[in-house]
């Protein structure tokens, strides 16, 4: 049976999380079809057709699918789902929004944020903020699953030669409408895809002090993240939050600056390859997971760090 992967895309470009989701689909095995739903998605569909391992691209181009409103996109996916053994979406805010709606319409349970594929019906997923890993088995006719991107290495963006087929008979449900969007602008790499992440916590004291982290991040080519404390205190916008309720990252290097290391924060970054903690409190829990710890005043350490790299 074939697997349907729902593409994540923004501003006319295929998002990286789609590549990790295709990788998860390859582990399950079977033909991989990618659905691109949206408005004006030609470029995204063409990009998806070139992705390694993709056999077919389904393009649903209609104003009803703009901004992927779940009330309109979920019935579209349901109308296609019966031909597939699995429906996968990346566990982005988009995927998390529409996919449970799809699962309920199909009358099956959804499996959220898998980090490993054991077999075509058995998967591993973290629970309790990553403090336990559950192995779950699905008996559903169509297995509906969101994929945690950091659990799978992305497939190549080139190498595929899939055909593109137009789909989408379902029109707007008429119960919801997009009003506006306010996106944070940044020249730095995207947080969930960055190789290096520099994160600041309450210890940064104010939003202005984040400029020290930005300077260090720019030297390292890193993305900048934050703990909930820093977001709640208004230092930085919420889309920078790393943790159980924010973004899950697993970069090569994670530098935690002035972050104590609460369970909820660790849930979002403890799969990073190398963790560095910079904190003045040597008892801070972050040191229990850090590969390299440096106890001291971050306002002295960060500028020095920037000088040396």
């Amino acid at each position, binding site marked *: 049976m074939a697997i349907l992967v729902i593409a994540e895309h923004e501003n006319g470009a295929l998002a990286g999380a789609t590549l990790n989701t295709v990788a998860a689909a390859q582990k399950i095995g079977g033909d991989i079809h990618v659905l691109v739903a949206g408005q004006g998605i030609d470029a995204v569909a063409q990009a998806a057709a070139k992705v390694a391992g993709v056999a077919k691209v389904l393009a649903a181009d209609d104003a009803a699918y703009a901004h992927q409103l779940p009330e309109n996109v979920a019935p579209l996916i349901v109308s296609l789902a019966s031909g597939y053994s699995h429906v996968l979406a990346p566990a982005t805010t988009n995927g*998390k929004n529409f996919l449970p*709606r799809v699962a309920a319409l199909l009358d099956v349970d959804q499996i959220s944020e898998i980090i490993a594929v054991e077999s075509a019906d058995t998967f591993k997923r973290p629970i*309790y903020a990553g403090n336990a890993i559950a192995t779950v088995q699905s008996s559903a006719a169509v297995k509906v699953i969101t994929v945690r991107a950091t659990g799978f290495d992305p497939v190549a963006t080139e190498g595929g030669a899939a055909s593109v087929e137009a789909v989408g008979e379902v029109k707007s449900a008429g119960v919801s409408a997009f009003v506006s969007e306010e996106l944070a602008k940044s020249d730095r790499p995207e947080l969930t895809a960055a190789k290096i992440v520099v994160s600041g916590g309450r210890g940064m004291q104010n939003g202005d002090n984040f400029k020290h982290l930005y300077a260090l991040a720019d030297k*390292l080519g890193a993305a900048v993240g934050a703990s909930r404390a820093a977001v709640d205190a208004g230092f930085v916008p919420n889309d920078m939050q790393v943790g*159980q309720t924010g973004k899950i990252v697993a970069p090569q290097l994670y530098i935690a600056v002035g972050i104590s290391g609460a369970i909820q924060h660790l849930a979002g970054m403890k799969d990073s390859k190398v963790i560095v903690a910079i904190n003045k409190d040597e008892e801070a829990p972050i040191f229990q997971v850090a590969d390299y710890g440096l106890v001291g005043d971050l306002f002295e350490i960060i500028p020095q760090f920037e000088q040396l*790299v």
Partner: protein
Amino acid sequence: MKVLVAVKRVVDYNVKVRVKPDNSGVDLANVKMSMNPFCEIAVEEAVRLKEKGVASEIVVVTVGPATAQEQLRTALALGADRAVLIEATEELNSLAIAKALKSVVDKEQPQLVILGKQAIDSDNNQTGQMLAALTGYAQGTFASKVELSGDKVNVTREIDGGLQTVALNLPAIVTTDLRLNEPRYASLPNIMKAKKKPLEVVKAQDLGISLTSTTKTLKVEAPATRSAGVKVKSVAELVEKLKNEAKVI
């Protein structure tokens, strides 16, 4: 208008959970239980709508064991008017819970249903979306702002790139993100008053819905542990180690 709020009893967010030695689950014996933090935010939002004169009645509902009455009483102490417990002896999956909640929606006919965006135990982030699917209502998930105007509700949502605002027809389903509000504490007089508020108990198996699940948990394991590394003395040493030992910069 009537607002329905769904809450869940979960292990307290500060507890460091331990996996049972037989890998059947997480050990919850003698562990502190609380209302799921996202559900507290849902209750608070409903109470604020009532204080603004928008909501006329707040019904709080939970699906779970008899002990979940404690969390319903907490919600009543925070300002809900009455409570419904759908008593289930075994742990139910999100879809079964959404079906149980739909039975309450059908009976109560609320204009707005508020849930947390996810429970901090199962971390599923599904129930609100599934309830929206079953009822056919619009959904405003991960809400950081909720504004009612006429027969619509404008919901500002936290999305990966920032914020997005959608307009939903009522009745609608909203799930809360952490930044929607700061929940209040229950005062002692309100806790006393809450004891007298009505709390109805319904058995899940009497609802005439299917509670069966298409997923089963085979085992639960502790994650691979990460051991503490080394403390370095200086920034120079740190940079040297990152360059030559870890080779990450």
